[in-house]
């Protein structure tokens, strides 16, 4: 079971009304390497991995939902007071036609989120290497968004999220070390 806590993991502030930035941030909401994909990837892999790393997958997967809420907060604040015309001018006309100012799990080019983003091979090493790669890809995506954004407050939050990818990658690398150690010696009865 899960509990929601009514607070953000990190204080999110937005300096300027900038709908174009919202368009890019959607990538981390409903894109392949976004936070929704990350949360669902790790929580789903728990059922076919050695018990020693189930806690880690549970806790990182849970933290990803907190990151999803941070991204949603940025998009919400960037677009909540925009008119249809302003959305169109920012290149968000298609999105506005479909959703008004509502959020939707899609990437920056409006491709809807798909379960195909979530790999689960059922092989512990393959899955953990997938997770390490996913963290590095998400780290890179945050870098590219930071390179395009000139909102210092948004960039502050994005740097926090980027650093979390670094830490998660570290823990997944440690998880590989744990499951490759002696516990996997075949027991002969």
């Amino acid at each position: 079971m899960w509990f929601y806590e009514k607070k953000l993991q990190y204080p999110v502030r937005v300096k300027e009304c900038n709908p174009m930035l919202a368009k890019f941030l959607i990538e981390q909401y409903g894109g392949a390497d976004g936070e929704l994909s990350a949360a669902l990837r790790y929580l789903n892999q728990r059922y076919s991995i050695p018990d020693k790393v189930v806690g880690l997958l549970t806790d990182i997967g849970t933290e990803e939902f907190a990151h999803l809420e941070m991204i949603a907060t940025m998009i919400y604040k960037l677009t909540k007071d925009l008119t249809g015309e302003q959305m169109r001018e920012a290149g968000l006309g298609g999105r506005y036609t479909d959703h008004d100012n509502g959020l939707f799990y899609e990437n920056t080019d409006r491709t809807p989120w798909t379960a195909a983003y979530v790999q689960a091979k059922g092989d512990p090493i393959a899955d953990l290497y997938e997770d390490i790669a996913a963290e590095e890809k998400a780290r890179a995506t945050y870098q590219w968004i930071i390179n395009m954004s000139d909102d210092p407050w948004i960039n502050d939050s994005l740097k926090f999220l980027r650093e979390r990818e670094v830490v998660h990658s570290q823990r997944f690398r440690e998880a590989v070390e744990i499951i490759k150690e002696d516990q996997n010696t075949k027991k002969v009865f």
Partner: protein
Amino acid sequence: MTQKQLPEEFYPLLEELQATDFVLVELTLYLDTHPHDQAAIQQFNEFAHYRHQLKLRVEEYYGPLQQYGNSYSATPWNWNDSPWPWQI
């Protein structure tokens, strides 16, 4: 729905809870891969104790932080009171 305005002193208190909880998140992930680090476990338990007290102070201003019985309610039921985290 009434528009609740949060007093100025709420914000640093929330920040302190966020900082405390962040230490707990970091120690949780660390302990998931370092289950025998006694010093880290002790630090985790100390922070867990402190966050429990801090939570009660934040809730005096903000209302319940969790539900399903993990926070107490005022009358009327105040879980649904604005602002939500993305609105603050």
